[in-house]
């Protein structure tokens, strides 16, 4: 385990299955490390609860509270009997001092978050729906390091996911995707999209991106 036992005594909290750890939009001052068990990260989308992620022992969540007192961006619910270590923002420095492993974990989490946010910004800045959709597909392909971009790429995604990344309505996104299907550039299946030539999409997006500011 990452942390010594005395941390568990001092910072340990236990949750029963189904118990909420924190709720989206609640102000947050603490972040958590899972000692044992697992939690579901959920959001209400169109009044339906959607599971965004599941986290297990060793994972950290709620870390945005370290930076600033922003409301929580998702709800976290214990998926089974779960033991967490709960750390207040004020203890952060002292905690890092004693737990460089945790600090390292946070570096990795922030690296990923920065990339996601930057990528999202780049997609949103493109001015054509088709290009936005292409760039979302490129991003999803790039995110998977084991994917060979030179052959056809299978992406586990949906119209709704793409619409949320591109900041467009589901209808607009669907139209752009349908157009690509009609052109034979992609194939759509339940929960996945096959892109025939992702490098071609990358070229088109990059070339437009260069033109945007010239």
């Amino acid at each position, binding site marked *: 385990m990452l942390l010594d036992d005395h941390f568990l005594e001092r910072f340990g909290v236990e949750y029963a299955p189904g118990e909420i750890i924190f709720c989206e939009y609640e102000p947050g001052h603490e972040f958590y490390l899972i000692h044992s068990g697992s939690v579901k990260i959920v959001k209400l989308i169109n009044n339906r609860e959607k599971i965004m992620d599941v986290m297990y022992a060793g994972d950290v969540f709620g870390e945005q509270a370290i930076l600033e007192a922003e409301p929580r961006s998702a709800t976290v619910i214990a998926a089974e009997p779960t033991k967490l270590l709960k750390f207040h923002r004020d203890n952060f420095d002292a905690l890092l001092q004693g737990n460089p492993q945790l600090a390292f974990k946070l570096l990795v989490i922030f690296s990923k978050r*920065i990339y996601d*946010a930057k990528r999202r910004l780049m997609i949103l800045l493109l001015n054509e729906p088709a290009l936005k959709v292409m760039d979302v597909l490129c991003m999803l392909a790039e995110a998977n390091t084991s994917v060979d971009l030179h052959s056809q790429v299978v992406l586990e995604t949906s119209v709704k996911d793409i619409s949320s990344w591109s900041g467009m309505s589901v209808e607009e996104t669907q139209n752009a995707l349908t157009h690509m299907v009609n052109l034979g550039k992609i194939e759509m299946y339940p929960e996945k999209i096959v892109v025939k030539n992702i490098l071609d999409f990358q070229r088109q997006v990059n070339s437009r991106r260069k033109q945007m500011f010239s």
Partner: protein
Amino acid sequence: MSDVISGGGIRTRTYKSQAIVYFEGDKSESIYILKKGKVLLTYLRPETGEEIKEEVRPGEFFGVKSALGKYPREENAQTIGETVILILSPVDFERIVLSNIQVVKKMLRVFSNQLRRIGRAVREVMGETNSVDPANELYKIADHYSGSGRPQQALYAYKKYMEYYPDGKYASNAMRMIRNIESGNYQAPVVAVADEPVMSRPSVSESDDDFFASESSAGAGSSFDDGNANSEFSDFDDYDDLGGLSDFGTEMDSFVSNSPDDGMMDDFGLGEPLSSSPEDKYNEAVAFRNNGDCTHAIKLLDEIKADKSVSDPDLLHKVFIETGRCKLEQGKLQEALSELSLFLKNYPRSPFVKEALLEAGNVYLKAGSKDKAMAYLKKVAAMPPRDELNQQALALLKQHKF
């Protein structure tokens, strides 16, 4: 360029002037420390296209984020003058920084500033100037859990609402819900399911007669016949063969029995719109329906329809379908069909067409008109892309052994 392997797999590499350490888009797990010389990182700022040049100073790391986050390099790294660089694997990097927590803290500070800056830029591009009110959103979550039969989660959220917003506009409702749940008076809403067993004792709801007495509806005529494959459903307004009144009466009964009668929801029935923005109102309406109060849900939905400032087509489309759903739950089947028919006629290319067709299938199921129900559900089941609506339609077809 020359490599020297030092302890723990760390390599020292000497570069000539103007050498490329890496290109933007490269994938690599290596992390670098500049030992001697100069490295220039070059990238375009996404918002402006402006070229940014950052100089790495001796002793500083670079290439950290992309290596740790496992994504492509975001900048070009080029040497200026002869330069010596240490190349680390993520494991080496971890070992080094773990022994020097100050380095990690400094990096976390830099990263958090970057994250904040990009987050701000994203919000600006999205036009999120009027940010949502966390108090209202928190209350909506509480209502959602209350309405979906999860009192413990609802209790948590209502309590948090009271903790942070004791003077909030929903405070009295939240307190009442807390008391109800804590005193065991919480009653899970009954969700109307189309395939409930038909009750044996017939009864009449206020809308039964209307359904058969009236022949046309707002969507009368050649509704939903835009010439595409959907045109086979242009009989949306044709209610003639919906079956006998007695069958229908028994279907209605299950609805009547589902009405909440414990007074728990009375406090929601103040007749005042509880929320301001159209999106808020829509969510509130869904919460009302989940709580079994379709009358107030419809009132809010009507307000959105009447609001000329609402321009989001997705929201308007959802409002039509939600109205249909409320009418269905109220047992006002003809009105439900009119609403859905009008929607399909006016917005045949909406992304919510499939949802509307599924609801129409549900209405016909409720009305005991199996042929039509089957036609609509089959249509939904076959509509690409395959998603949960297809699954729901297939499940209903299976349940009803169509």
